[in-house]
């Protein structure tokens, strides 16, 4: 035998570490088996959790049976699956490998109980229709994860014991790798799900504010959209200076920037004319109120900065703290520019909306005064590109 099985196993193990996509991994390994051992085909049935059945995921062969991926399945009551999942292999076959020829002999000579004999006979029929001569199960604890099916060797030669050993080791490694890949994927999906849940919760919170303050209807969504566009433009210009995490925080902060308005009396929010001085003071509490609402969530540290300081101005004339140039967090400065632009282009009870062109001119005028000039010019560019 020219094949060094130990080396083959090592090579397979290496690819299992490198390849995280289970489908790619299985295909690679099947191709290897077919090439190295010269079997007419090799296939693997894998347990599909969603459908609660075993699906023939890959089947490879230079000639001979090549079943299209996902075309066939074996349900749990399939005799071959039952044979292995009931662990008949342990009782009837010493090493757990089902070899067609030997099982046939077993049927002839051993004293088998009627049920086992029938099950083995039915399992062998499955081997026949899949043109399989060797079957190797793989388990995780007591669960059957999959079954490796091997077709005839060239010239219908017998499999050598070391070949069988190789396949047993390989199958259990493959099963483990697939199991890991699946767990990893499930974890990723779970994280993704949690993240979506979080974003949707944030959107729901933002909607709570909008429900209370009819004049800002749609405002949150627009401010979020403009903020993210400004950030993306800044990112392009500065070659990815803003981290994923920052963009994510900006997304959340812009959704929640007016959350503090929940604490402002509706009489003020819904007033049809300009605000009196004391009303204005009350209204100006909303950024701090927002930050207090979010304070209990330590993961939202940077988000809170965006909420708390989105009314600060570049020249220090804003509120609540009168922070000036260089002390206003970037996340707040971006939301501020987006918020200012959207406020200008929206009708208010006490004034008509500006057109976008007029608003952009106004943004240019207050750049370097109320607004950070870098961000104002990014906003200008976003507008010129026709993105808003």
């Amino acid at each position, binding site marked *: 035998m020219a094949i060094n099985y130990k080396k083959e196993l090592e090579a397979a193990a290496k690819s299992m570490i490198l390849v995280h996509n289970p489908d790619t991994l299985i295909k690679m390994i099947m191709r290897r088996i077919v090439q190295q051992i010269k079997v007419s085909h090799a296939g693997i049935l894998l347990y599909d959790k969603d459908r609660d059945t075993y699906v023939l995921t890959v089947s490879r062969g230079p000639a001979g*049976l*090549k079943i*299209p991926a996902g*075309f*066939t399945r074996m*349900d749990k009551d*399939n005799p071959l699956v039952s044979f292995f999942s009931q662990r008949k292999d342990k009782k009837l076959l010493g090493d757990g490998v089902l070899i067609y020829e030997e099982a046939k002999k077993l049927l002839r000579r051993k004293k088998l109980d009627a049920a086992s004999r029938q099950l083995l006979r039915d399992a062998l029929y499955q081997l026949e229709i899949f043109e399989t001569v060797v079957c190797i199960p793989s388990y995780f604890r007591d669960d059957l994860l999959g079954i490796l099916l091997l077709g005839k060797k060239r010239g219908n030669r017998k499999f050598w014991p070391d070949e069988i050993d190789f396949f047993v080791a390989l199958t259990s490694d493959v099963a483990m790798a697939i199991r890991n890949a699946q767990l990893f994927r499930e974890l990723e999906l779970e994280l993704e799900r949690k993240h979506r849940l979080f974003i949707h919760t944030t959107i729901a919170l933002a909607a709570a504010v909008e429900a209370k303050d009819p004049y800002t209807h749609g405002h949150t969504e627009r401010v979020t959209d403009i903020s993210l566009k400004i950030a993306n433009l800044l990112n392009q210009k500065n070659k990815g200076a803003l981290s994923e995490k920052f963009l994510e925080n900006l997304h959340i902060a812009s959704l929640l920037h007016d959350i503090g308005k929940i604490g402002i009396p509706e009489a003020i929010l819904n007033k049809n004319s300009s605000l009196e001085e004391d009303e204005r003071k009350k209204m100006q509490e909303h950024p701090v109120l927002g930050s207090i609402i979010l304070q209990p969530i330590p993961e939202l540290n940077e988000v809170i900065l965006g909420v708390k300081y989105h009314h600060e101005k570049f020249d220090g004339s804003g509120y609540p703290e009168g922070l000036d140039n260089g002390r206003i967090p970037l996340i707040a400065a971006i939301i501020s520019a987006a918020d200012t632009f959207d406020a200008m282009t929206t009708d208010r009870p006490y004034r008509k909306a500006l057109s976008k062109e007029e608003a952009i001119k106004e943004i240019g005028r207050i750049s370097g005064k109320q607004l950070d000039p870098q961000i104002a010019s990014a906003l200008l560019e976003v507008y010129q590109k026709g993105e808003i």
Partner: protein
Amino acid sequence: MARLLIVDDEADVREFAANFFRKRKVEVSTASAGEEALGLIEKQKPDLVLLDIKMAGIDGVETLRRIKEMDRDIKVIMVTGRKPEENSFERCKQLGALQYVHKPLELDELEKIVLKELFPAKKEG
């Protein structure tokens, strides 16, 4: 010899299923689309058609309707993909399809169903 027509737009499926049934003494022809299948049926008069539902062009359900229009006696078994449309099962039954099997399918079940229709006398044996 019993004649089977396999209609599926996936070449691998056609090839595999055709080989599978040829080994079981069935004369098999294949078509990759509904139009092609209708042409073949007119010429060859197969005893049984394995018809994939989801195909480009005229789909399996419409192909079934036209087959039955041509010849009510041709037996048709529908094969569906993973996510069959909601009422396609009912619709195929109304149109006279014999059976309805889902991919991924159990090979022995497919074998049983097809051979039973092609060799009805053998089923007692």
